[in-house]
């Protein structure tokens, strides 16, 4: 919330422009100073090991701020839910915070707060985590608290009705957000009955959830084998290791992780959801692409940054900085376990809904046909190389990186060779990635907007 709104603005760059303040045209412009030679950068060293019960631990001493982040990452989430119980994993996460066999929820909250942190449980499609960010003095104590919450949840019956009421309220609030409506449609089209195809629980699934369901889910999906504890920041290494061994060492192995990679095919569908009176149209346009383990993943990432995934990207500069159709366009590669799709999202002026789609597809087609100029690609490669440093230069970001590599099984080499691989991509590769994987005639096109005003505009983009 705090960050919302007025922030962002900004904008864009782009390769092809010919505009300019004519009054200045004649004036000789200064060139920016180039800066010095780059400093070497290595991803901060970490120590990883596996405990006898199979739980993995990764420790990263980092930085000078007197803080440490601990994140227990669990290989479980909505993927493990029974088909008729969407949202069960979320409810498990919520009820876990409501007490352990030895501590009330209030005691847990006060203990975390007394270390300068809060206990956060996040549930995702493939993974969940129990995380806290505390003052350095409390690294060991925080590990013990996470261990207790993860291993000894009380799952009190008394708190469930309240959490269900909260979940129903949240469901109703979330489903009214146009970007969420678009995502729900898009996922359903792409993934069908696979768990990735379901974004929200249902009122029915919330209402019928019992503590027995929750305990059954916990027993079937939690344990040392599915867990990986990441610790990053400033902390007493010996003390924290000792606390981890003592507090997690006795955790039963539990079940191994289940893999359920969907077999996805492009679905060329135009899906228009009517939102009468909508002030904008919400667009989500995309298709499946090779996942993180593919040798094309990095070239595709470079292509995405150039096409729509950065300020300077082509689509953003077109529909925002040239046309002014939208404030917040962006393309991304959305990843799950050995699964990925490329998508462009934008909330656009209603009257330019069709025009926005036209420009998005035109930029894709152009890139597929003509390799980008060397300088444009070089710019994107430098951008991604610089971004890589920032993505490995804070506690939270480091954990995210290491967690991603571990989760996708990319190997230790991935971070060491990433920048080199980014810079090895050629202009021809970019065109090839585009023509091979980002195809307007195979895209799922989701539009949430005022149907009376946009139906005709978007009709030409439907299946032919």
């Amino acid at each position, binding site marked *: 919330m705090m960050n919302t709104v007025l922030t962002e603005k900004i904008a864009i760059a782009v390769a092809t422009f010919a505009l300019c303040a004519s009054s200045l045209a004649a004036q000789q412009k200064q060139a920016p100073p180039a800066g010095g030679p780059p*400093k070497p950068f290595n991803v901060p060293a970490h120590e990883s090991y596996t405990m006898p019960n199979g739980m993995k631990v990764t420790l990263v001493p980092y930085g000078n701020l007197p803080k440490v982040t601990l994140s227990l990452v669990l290989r479980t989430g909505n993927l493990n839910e029974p088909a008729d119980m969407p949202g069960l994993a979320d409810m498990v996460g919520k009820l876990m915070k409501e007490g352990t066999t030895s501590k009330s929820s209030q005691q847990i909250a006060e203990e975390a707060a007394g270390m300068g942190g*809060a206990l956060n449980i996040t549930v995702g499609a493939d993974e969940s985590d129990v995380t806290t960010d505390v003052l350095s003095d409390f690294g060991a104590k925080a590990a013990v608290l996470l261990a207790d919450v993860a291993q000894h949840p009380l799952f009190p019956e008394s708190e469930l009705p309240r959490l269900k009421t909260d979940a129903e309220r949240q469901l109703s*609030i979330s489903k009214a957000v146009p970007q969420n409506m678009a995502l729900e449609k898009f996922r359903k089209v792409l993934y069908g009955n696979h768990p990735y195809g379901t974004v929200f629980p249902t009122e029915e699934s919330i209402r019928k959830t019992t503590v027995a369901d929750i305990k059954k889910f916990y027993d079937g999906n939690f344990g040392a084998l599915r867990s990986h504890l990441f610790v990053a920041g400033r902390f007493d290494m010996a003390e924290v290791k000792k606390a981890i061994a003592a507090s997690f060492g006795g955790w039963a192995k539990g079940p191994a992780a289940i893999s359920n990679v969907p077999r996805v095919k492009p679905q060329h569908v135009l899906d228009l959801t009517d939102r009468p009176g909508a002030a904008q149209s919400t667009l989500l346009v995309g298709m499946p692409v090779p996942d993180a383990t593919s040798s094309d993943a990095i070239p595709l990432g470079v292509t995405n940054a150039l096409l729509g995934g950065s*300020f300077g990207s082509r689509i953003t500069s077109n529909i925002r900085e040239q046309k*002014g159709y939208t404030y917040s366009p*962006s393309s991304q590669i959305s990843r799950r376990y050995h699964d990925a799709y490329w998508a462009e999202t934008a909330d656009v002026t209603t009257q330019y809904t069709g025009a926005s789609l036209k420009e998005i597809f035109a930029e894709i087609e152009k890139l597929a046909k003509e390799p980008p100029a060397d300088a444009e690609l070089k710019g994107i490669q430098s951008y991604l190389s610089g971004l890589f440093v920032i993505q490995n230069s804070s506690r939270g970001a480091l954990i995210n990186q290491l967690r991603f590599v571990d989760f996708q099984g990319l190997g230790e080499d991935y971070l060491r060779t990433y920048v080199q691989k980014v810079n090895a991509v050629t202009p021809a590769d970019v065109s090839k990635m585009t023509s091979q994987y980002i195809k307007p005639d195979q895209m799922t096109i989701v539009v949430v907007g005022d149907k009376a005003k946009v139906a005709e505009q978007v009709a030409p983009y439907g299946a032919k």
Partner: protein
Amino acid sequence: MFERLLRKFSCLAMALTALSLGADRTMAGAAGSELKVPVEYYKLPNGLRVVLSQDHTAPTVCVAVYYRIGFRVEPKDRTGFAHLFEHMMFQGSQNLGKMEFIKLVQQNGGILNGSTRFDFTNYFEILPSNKLETALWAEADRMNGLAVTEENLKNQQGVVGNEVKVNVINRPYGGFPWLDMPQYANTNWYNAHNFYGDLKDIEAATLPDVQSFFKTYYAPNNAALAIVGDFDVMQARQWVEKYFGGIKASNLPAQPDLSEPKQTKEKNANRVDPLAKRPGIAIAYHMPERNTPEYYAMGLIDQILIEGDDSLAYQELVQKQGLTAAVQGGINYLGNMFNYKGPMLFMADVRYDPATKPETIVKAWDTALEPLRAKEVDKALLERARVKLRSDLYGNMGSVGGFGLADLLASFALFDDNPARINSLVSEFDKVTPELIQKTAQEYLKPENRTVLVLETKPADAAKPAEAPAKN
């Protein structure tokens, strides 16, 4: 868009040099979590305030330029103009055409952003540290002058109109309560207008408006430059002198009277949000003046009352009464308790169910709050609040590539002429006594000092989309 990028890294913590700690030493013990931030502060002859804070943990540098012009002070017939203007700062300067600034930063491996707040507008970049000179040159170039066209302005009017739609008009709870509440709780126009802007005002802006605003406020004597990260101090000083030294100071207009009259009666307001599915309520109190003992006390009251699941409000409204899933809130919804200057609100908001009456929520809030007013706060509770506050403060300093620290240093330079106060903040909170907490709660957290805003879901007869909230 950029915000999304930032979120990816967020959580984070960039490093600062802690002089009190050897870089290789692992900390332990209570003294271990104290921190001293290196601060070098000086002014150029043209009035530019410069703050340098070195940290060699990562080979990155953050350059942040803060102008002391926020959305409070914008032309009265041009609501939203300060923010629209911010967009124009990316549209072209003397040596960089449209899109070239962004392209320059990106091609040098950096990220950038700008934002408009109550009392400042900022522009910042995070880059590999070998690109510091490039960033300083570029920021100086646009401080030196804009070169924008009618076409650029028209384009950004379209972009900003879409920004207001995506963040406010087309979204349930858009503007609630961060944009709405100041309009109900404040009475002085400067604090009480729609600072994102009425769409028609945004559309009415002209190129001469842009030029005049730049000429009036965008000058070195109205700005602070913060550099945080991996750089050489002597070298940085030379570049700052070289690129910013020649920019001319301007004659700044006198600041209008921004003060809020003392509120003497509780205010109540309702607004309908046809897109919202559940009602919401926000409660806001006028803050004590910044940097007073009561202000620091409010920082701790925020920790005790609202922040975290251990807070009094969470325990009462969520755990005990089950009225809502969360209580959001704090001091300054568009930043933190440090990066503003003028009148400010302390606020909390919740979403609840139609079966619950708004009075029930207010009553529960009062129940949570009452112990702070009725008696001196328990010592252990106060101690926990101090720990939370310190941890939050360090978390803030650590956010994104040095930007969190640059934000604090630039704010303290601009508003207090004293960025070194970053190292005495903790001691100011340490001075707060249980007695002062009680006195502050009694004086400020009383109904006479508050506004209660209810967001209703049922469209009333004349309800219009949630554009500009009408004043009740």
